[in-house]
């Protein structure tokens, strides 16, 4: 029985933490927020140079061939740093989809480029309010041509390739679509709750689309992909929740009211203790998720949903109560509390909401119990 990361993985964590402290301070997110840029290009290039985009890609495709535990470590640190980069889109979603469902030729074409950061990938799933289903999809592929609109698509303005969920006949499939097809893939930026992560709308008009995985199996493939991504998103969320708790604690220790630090009042203590409790439960569930992802365990759907639901709740709670602990200053543009508040909500709907994952959790529980 061993539930800890290895010494090497903890070294990687230290290295990642140090790197992001220097290269992805809150000022980096602020620059992206103020400038309206899609991402911090310099930071992204450095992350690519460190090989993080290549982490789990097999060596034969130009990757490092490391395990998912290494990727979980990196995810947590990126979450802690609220890094303004397209890592989740390109690595947890596009790379994972191709690793999972791609043909040898598709892997050969895309994985080396994704590993080397030559291209950024993303997943185009949403078509507006509500959960997409095979029935609800308007995006449709006929004779290898995709038409319809996806909104919002994370990193749509900088991605070169998207994994697109679309209808083919009555059923849904996944497609690989290059995003440089001119007016056939028209992009428009979309303002979101968290402008430190660029999002956009893509209108496809007879765009060339290549099937990814089996035809008609789009919803199953998407489910499997989201199970894998959920663990990685959850680690990002736990990292962010921990950072919000630390920020709240630091402020409460230094802020005096009625002659003493506000951290000595039980109302504040209990608030921070609650953050700690939620973060600890979420983190422990993430350990389970990391193990399940790394070993491709049968429990992955259950472990992923558990990690995801508890991480959504922990990050939301920590980010809102962090602002509350700061009082009025926490609500100002100048303070950094906003980054966690924005990111927590963005991540909580990024790959299906809390309600969807609660439902999936019970589905998985029922399957597991049966």
């Amino acid at each position, binding site marked *: *029985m*061993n*539930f*800890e*990361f*290895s010494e090497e993985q903890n070294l990687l964590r230290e290295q990642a933490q140090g790197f992001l402290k220097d290269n992805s301070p809150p000022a980096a997110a602020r620059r992206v927020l103020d400038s309206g840029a899609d991402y911090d290009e310099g930071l992204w290039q450095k992350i690519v140079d460190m090989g993080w985009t290549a982490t789990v890609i097999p060596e034969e495709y130009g990757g490092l061939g490391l395990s998912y*535990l290494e990727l979980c470590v990196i995810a947590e640190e990126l979450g802690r740093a609220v890094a303004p980069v397209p890592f989740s889109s390109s690595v947890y979603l596009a790379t994972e989809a191709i690793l999972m469902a791609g043909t040898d030729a598709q892997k050969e074409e895309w994985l080396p480029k994704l590993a080397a950061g030559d291209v950024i990938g993303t997943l185009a799933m949403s078509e507006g309010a509500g959960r997409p289903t095979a029935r609800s999809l308007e995006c449709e592929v006929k004779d290898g041509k995709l038409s319809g609109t996806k909104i919002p698509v994370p990193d749509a303005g900088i991605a070169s390739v998207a994994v697109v969920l679309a209808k083919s006949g009555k059923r849904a499939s996944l497609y690989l679509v290059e995003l440089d097809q001119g007016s056939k893939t028209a992009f428009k930026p979309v303002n979101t709750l968290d402008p430190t992560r660029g999002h956009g709308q893509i209108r496809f008009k007879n765009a060339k689309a290549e099937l990814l995985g089996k035809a008609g199996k789009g919803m199953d493939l998407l489910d499997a992909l989201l199970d894998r991504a959920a663990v990685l998103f959850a680690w990002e969320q736990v990292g962010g929740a921990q950072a919000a708790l630390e920020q709240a*604690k630091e402020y*409460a*220790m230094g802020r005096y009211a009625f002659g*003493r*630090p506000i*951290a*000595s*009042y*039980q109302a*504040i*203590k*209990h608030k*921070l*203790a*609650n953050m*700690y*409790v939620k973060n*600890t*439960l*979420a983190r*422990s*569930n993430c*350990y*389970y998720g*990391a*193990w399940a992802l*790394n070993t491709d365990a049968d429990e992955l759907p259950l472990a992923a*949903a*558990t990690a995801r*639901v*508890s991480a959504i*709740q922990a990050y939301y709670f920590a980010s809102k109560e962090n602002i509350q602990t700061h009082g009025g200053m926490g609500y100002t543009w100048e303070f950094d509390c906003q980054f966690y508040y924005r990111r927590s909500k963005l991540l909580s709907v990024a790959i299906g909401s809390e*309600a969807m*994952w*609660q*439902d999936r*959790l*019970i589905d998985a*529980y*029922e399957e597991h*119990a049966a």
Partner: protein
Amino acid sequence: MDFKDTAEEAAFRKEVRAWLKANRPKKKELEGLGGIEQAKLWQKRKYDAGWACITWPKEYGGRGASPIENVIWNQEESRYDLPQGVFSIGQGMAAPTLMMWASDEDKARFLPKLASGEEIWCQLFSEPAGGSDLAALRTRAVKDGDEWVINGQKIWTSGAHYSDYGILVLRTDPSVPKHKGLTYFWIDMRAPGMEIKPIRQISGDSNFNEVYFTDVRVSDSQRLGAEGQGWQVALTTLMNERASIGAGGGSVGVDSIYKLAKEVEIDGKPAIRDPAVRAKLADWYCQESGLKYTSWRTLSALSRGETPGPENSIGKLVGAPKAQDMASFAIDLQEMAGAIRDPKLSEAAAMYQETYMAIPGLRIAGGTDEIMANIIAERVLGLPQDVRVDKGIPFSEVPTGS
């Protein structure tokens, strides 16, 4: 990271399973015995075969097993519905305190009988004026030659009426600040001058007692730690209390409520198909799973010979309110029939109703939710203590409400 048993652990588990299967008491053996006799029978059988208190050193009746082996033992033992419970205070709290503070002679005298279940211990800490603020306790011990004379009252003493011995903290010097005037002793629960009165709880049961002391005499040799060192010794007990008082709630959990939600209907469909029911169950599953893997992380640190982090301090704070909410929810699922508290008529032999009535006590016992949150805030997060108006003041001059 590997959540599976190692080869040694798997071999140990196999050994445990085989022994439990062959030796667990059969229904016939337990027939006609009271709860305590049943528990004593099972405990003695484990002791005789070397399976009692397995992490204790062999010389005290244990097995010298590792914390991981203990987890495996507990997992396997809990697969059966076996009579136990009355030993948890003695084995979980008194014993670790004795191991650290008692003389070798007392250790040899008491620990094996604690392990074998032949002697039951209780804990006499709380008082009417000292609960969350335990160090405000007032029961006096005055030295008289080689003896101490005790007068006062303890309260919330679980199992005082069937215990053989107790551990207790007493005020030996009221002229110094409260933490400094305490001394720790063990006591024979049949000592003259002690009177035990059961307390009737809101559940109707009586698990706790008031214990009155009138000129009760204990020998100075029953002292654990130095005179005035009682608070420090008590901390040993309290650290272990948090480990041994579980979250409670027994079998009320996602598994039981899932079964119930499959049986009862909402609008003509099984309740489990209702999104609101699913969402609640999912949240509770996350808490159960989070607690489980938090404790596994703690064990993982133990098995590597490291001191575990503070993560495990959240168990009772999360578990007790969760059990309360789940019992309440399970009652709601049954609509009006949920109000019936009768093992013959209620779902699951009235487990939800019993838990509903029992849990308010567990949210208070061994540190209230609020005290647990303070502990996390102060000891884990390192936040400053609240202002304490009794700090540095002789105990006899501290303001009181009575």
